[in-house]
């Protein structure tokens, strides 16, 4: 849905506490994601980046705090309202999570089939449009996920995440497992789609190039909290040891010089 960019938060997390296996993964975490922005979420391995994403999506139960998505508190919302919200977001899982017994085309059509009553012709056409938008050739439509390469799986998964034209897209490490050229293309694709479709993108990533290229804002997760958030310039000025090491370490410098 295209609407003029307003400066309001589409995701508002407040004091979220998540405990898994007696270990506090998220401790009083608060985060706002603004409409129309690309938020990059970084943090060391095992700090709970994916856990936060899954908590927002309702896949991991939280112990305390509240999460509002598109102005609706998902804990208090009725089943019906929750469903309505679920239609307005799309998720790209780390491994793609394509349904292995469905073809590429059926995978992309799956959410449409569930939520909209469309004619077969329109569904085929829209699914093909989505596949073309993510840069896949028409001949992949009848292939099964097991016949696709890693990069193609990510693209199909993105097409499926975009099937219902969601307002928010969650991307869990979209460029992991792609070669640098493929990763660069994928970043560009996300940027283009974000601009054409007016998406809000919540991206968990490790890819410094992605952070430099496409993220409007970056949030850093450490010790269960967002310790810094802001533009890449803010990150480069931060004196927090982990942030400093991450953005100004050897690899961070390489990414900066690549930008220059």
């Amino acid at each position, binding site marked *: *849905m*295209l609407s*003029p960019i307003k400066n309001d938060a589409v995701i508002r997390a407040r004091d979220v506490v998540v405990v898994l296996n007696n270990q506090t993964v998220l401790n009083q975490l608060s985060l706002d994601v603004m409409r129309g922005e690309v938020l990059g979420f970084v943090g060391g391995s095992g700090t709970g980046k994916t856990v936060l994403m899954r908590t927002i999506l309702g896949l991991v139960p939280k112990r305390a705090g509240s999460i509002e998505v598109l102005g609706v508190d998902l804990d208090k919302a009725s089943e019906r309202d929750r469903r309505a919200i679920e239609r307005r977001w799309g998720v790209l899982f780390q491994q793609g999570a394509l349904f292995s017994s469905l073809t590429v085309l059926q995978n992309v059509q799956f959410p449409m089939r569930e939520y*909209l009553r469309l004619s077969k012709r329109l569904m085929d056409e*829209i699914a093909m449009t*989505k596949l073309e938008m993510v840069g896949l050739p028409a001949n992949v439509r009848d292939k099964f*996920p097991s016949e696709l390469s890693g990069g193609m799986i990510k693209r199909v998964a993105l097409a499926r995440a975009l099937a219902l*034209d969601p307002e928010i897209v969650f991307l869990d490490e979209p460029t992991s497992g792609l070669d640098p050229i493929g990763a660069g293309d994928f970043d560009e694709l996300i940027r283009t789609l974000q*601009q054409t479709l007016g998406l809000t993108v919540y991206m968990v990533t490790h890819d410094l190039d992605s952070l430099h290229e496409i993220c409007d804002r970056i949030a850093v997760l450490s010790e269960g909290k967002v310790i810094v958030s802001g533009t890449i310039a803010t990150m480069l000025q931060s004196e927090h040891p982990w942030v400093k090491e991450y953005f100004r370490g050897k690899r961070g410098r390489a990414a900066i010089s690549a930008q220059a």
Partner: protein
Amino acid sequence: MALIDEPLLRSVTQGDRLQLAAGGSWTAPNAADLEALIDDAVARGKQFVRVELNMAGVENLDTFGAWLLERLLRDCAEAGQGISVSGLPDRFRGIIDEAHQSNRPSEEQPHEGPLGSAIAGAERAVATISQDVVLNVAMFGALVFAALRVLVKPGSLRLTSVVHHLDRVCWRAVPIVLLITVLIGAIIAQQGIFHFRRFGAEVYVVDMLGILVMREIGVLIVAIMIAGRSGSAYTAELGAMKMREEVDALHTMGLDSIEVLVLPRVLALVIAMPILTFLGSMAALYGGGMVCWLYAGMSPDIFLGRLREIISIDHFEVGMSKAPFMALVIGIVASVEGLQVKGSAESLGLQTTASVVKSIFLVIVLDGIFAMFFAAIGK
């Protein structure tokens, strides 16, 4: 949801022109309604010289709306109908350009007629059967080869793995095997007593039970149960390993997947089957004996005495000698099917089903062949 007061597409006739005014949300939830309106507009437009579409009233537009607009333009162009679009807000420009580039005609794959596809299906089925035979024979060969290598170098046998699988397919299978065979023995005895009683030949039930259980039923029932219980587990395990590229990982480390994965499993099965067959046969005799005692009043002494007279070591040997061969068939079929699994969860399910069905079928066929063989050598 559609705004009632704002129609998605309104049409006004103006002389020889059809004017369309678009409004509301051209988005996914309204796509079905919008499609009908657009198809209708295309059909009606044919009666007019020109169609004019004003998009200024559209508030929201997503891929669905953009594509339907594109489809309207294409359908009109195809019908030779002039159409013009005005008032398109600039913010929709990007997505409309995307839609404009998509669904360009490409060569369709040729479709076969029903007869052609039936012939192709039969062709595939025959090819699959012959391929199956080849695969199973190849697996047998590979197993023999692996076993020979292990014989030459006994240290390379994965003893831990064999013991682990022995625990799973033998020890843990004992309770269910005993339960089922006791019941089968009891049912055979009960049916025998019921029918033999008419001739006053109740005592011959022991003959029937003894010979049937020792020669055929004991080993067959156990083989069928093991095919369902352990064969399916083997297929699922190997299939999941294949799916997650664990089998490929073994290969790249220079290890033979047959030796590492298949041989210990099949060996465990070959050891387990005779043990389970023996236990199963004894349990069936026990169940039959209990029924003879409780249902026909034949005391255990008489039952055992009769059994001793009837059962020779031959009967026992015939039954037991079949067990390892059946285990081999079950193991080979299960492994072949497991290693055939492709990437999808569905294929794992298909292969597991195929493994059970094929091994039960082959076990029964094998039993028939053995029956002919033993008849020929007079055992």
